[in-house]
């Protein structure tokens, strides 16, 4: 203890002359080491909040579409979120294709939002891109909004028959998830294809 005091004011044995003192070096090294350790400890405390592997393993859902008739829309559950599957009528397809893509807020054509040869199957995540409510229009007799697609009851976003945003606060079209037709009557949502 006594040496600690005298070392502070002197430039004697344990000092490196004009440069960095040994004591300062040890101090900086020790505190830095402790700091790195403390930061490393934060790792587990942070990653424990991330989705665990079993939650990530729920990332695909198989949907049987054999019972969905023309003009019918169903909801399925994917990652605890609704997925809308709409079997479009020729009229709905025609309405969607009649809109000039460049006039849209989020310009996308129907064919860009469906699989080639399967233009009558529209599959979108049923979460409004504004603030996450579920738009009406899938269930029988629900309000489909003025564009015949979906209507979000929370803040009045209106989607057309291709589930593209037409009016209201939502910034983007209803998202198209990764999916593939694993058979003519089965769709696997979440699988790239």
């Amino acid at each position, binding site marked *: *203890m006594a040496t*600690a005091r005298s070392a502070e004011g002197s430039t004697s044995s344990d000092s490196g002359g004009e440069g960095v003192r040994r004591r300062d070096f040890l101090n900086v090294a*020790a505190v830095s080491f*402790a700091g790195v350790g403390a930061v490393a400890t934060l*790792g*587990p*405390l942070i*990653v*424990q*909040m*991330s989705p*665990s*592997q*079993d939650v990530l393993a729920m990332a695909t859902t198989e949907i049987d579409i054999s019972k969905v008739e023309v003009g019918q829309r169903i909801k399925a559950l994917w990652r605890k979120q609704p997925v809308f599957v709409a079997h479009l009528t020729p009229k709905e397809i025609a309405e969607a294709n009649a809109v000039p893509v460049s006039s849209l807020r989020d310009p996308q054509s129907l064919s860009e939002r469906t699989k080639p040869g399967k233009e009558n199957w529209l599959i979108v995540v049923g979460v409004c891109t504004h603030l996450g409510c579920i738009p009406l229009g899938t269930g029988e007799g629900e309000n489909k909004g003025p564009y015949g697609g979906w209507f979000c009851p929370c803040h009045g976003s209106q989607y057309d028959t291709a589930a593209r945003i037409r009016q209201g606060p939502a910034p983007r079209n209803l998202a198209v998830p990764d999916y593939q037709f694993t058979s003519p009557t089965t769709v696997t949502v979440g699988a790239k294809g």
Partner: protein
Amino acid sequence: MSFSWARPYEPKHPLMRWLDERLPLPRIVYGAVGGGYPVPRNLNYWWNFGFTAAMFLAIQIVTGIVLAMHYYATADGAFNSVNQLIMRDVNAGWLLRYAHMNGASFFFIAVYIHIFRGLYYGSYKAPRELVWMLGLVIYLLMMATAFMGYVLPWGQMSYWGAQVITGFFSAFPVVGEPIRVWLLGGYAPDQAALTRFFSLHYLLPFVIAAVVILHIWALHIPGSGNPTGVDVKDERDTLPFHPFYTAKDGWFVGLLLLIYAIVTFFAPNYLGHADNYIPANPLATPAEIVPEWYFWPFYAILRSFTFDFILPAKLWGVLAMFSSILLLFFLPWLDKSPVRSGSYRPVFKRFFWLLVIDIVLLGWAGGGAPTPFRNAIGQICAAYYFLHFLVILPLISAFETPLPLPRSITDSVLHGEEAESAPAGPKPRRTKTATAVVE
């Protein structure tokens, strides 16, 4: 806080001055664990365990809050939420749970060393009686918290621990059984008990933290004790807490964290009991049921009463167990010797180590299956425990002739290392150091 030469807090940065005039929180921290708290210069390593205990409390609170994010307090889901969800599914959940499990043990290790330090160096004596008593309150709260935490995984040991410990209350005549049923919210541990234990297990650590603040506050009125037990006389006897004791505590905490990490990573279940990995079964008690190691001495006292004597044996056991801790509250008045430090009390010192051996033996007796031999050792040690505090200690303080105390802390330090560690008065200086120089 305590001494006139304590360095005052003088913020240099204008922002800190602005803050100090409105909310002098940095001033309080500076006075408590900064350069503004003068500490005796001669503290040895036994004085490091208070800081260490505080760190383990912090570790327990942080890991506990995180574990509560994933734990289900339901009789159906608790076991799986711990053993499947947390141990396998949650990212780093196994680490957090093992850290919490072993953190409890290390918290107790630190606190036990801290308590024995206090016993040896007379830290309970005036003017620090309240520091000692608040410490005992912390200890009791820790025991309650640890017990309730051990129930939460809802394994066999959890369940039967809850059954046995709430059973203590049924020892009291007339009101005992209704109290037990009220505590459990049923006739046996079930959903109601589990949910309330979880709620209290979350609450009590914050109560502990609050009492820790009172403990430190009460300590800082007279200031820290020291290995000589001699009061601080002037500025030469002290060093500012920062940087001297922050550095010493800092590296020592690093050492203990290293041991803690070794146990957590390489022997995480060494201090636990395998039966707690079997889901709770209300129809079968494990063949060998023992509490966690830190309760073993008390468990031995509990079962050392095997015969009825005026009162039923069961009630004696429970009363003895509770009073073994409660009598420590009276320690400042049981030991009336004016000399604080055991280093200057030759008779006390011998009996202190005998008490340590006695408590270790009690732990051995409480930690195993009850055989006649083990019970006999437990009974002798339990009797000696009470004998030590109620008879031996008062007698020693009345008849013992203590060794001469150093005139001051500085005086004891400046004798050199040998005189400081073996303070039997001034010894003739050996020529060892001189010859070393010559060589």
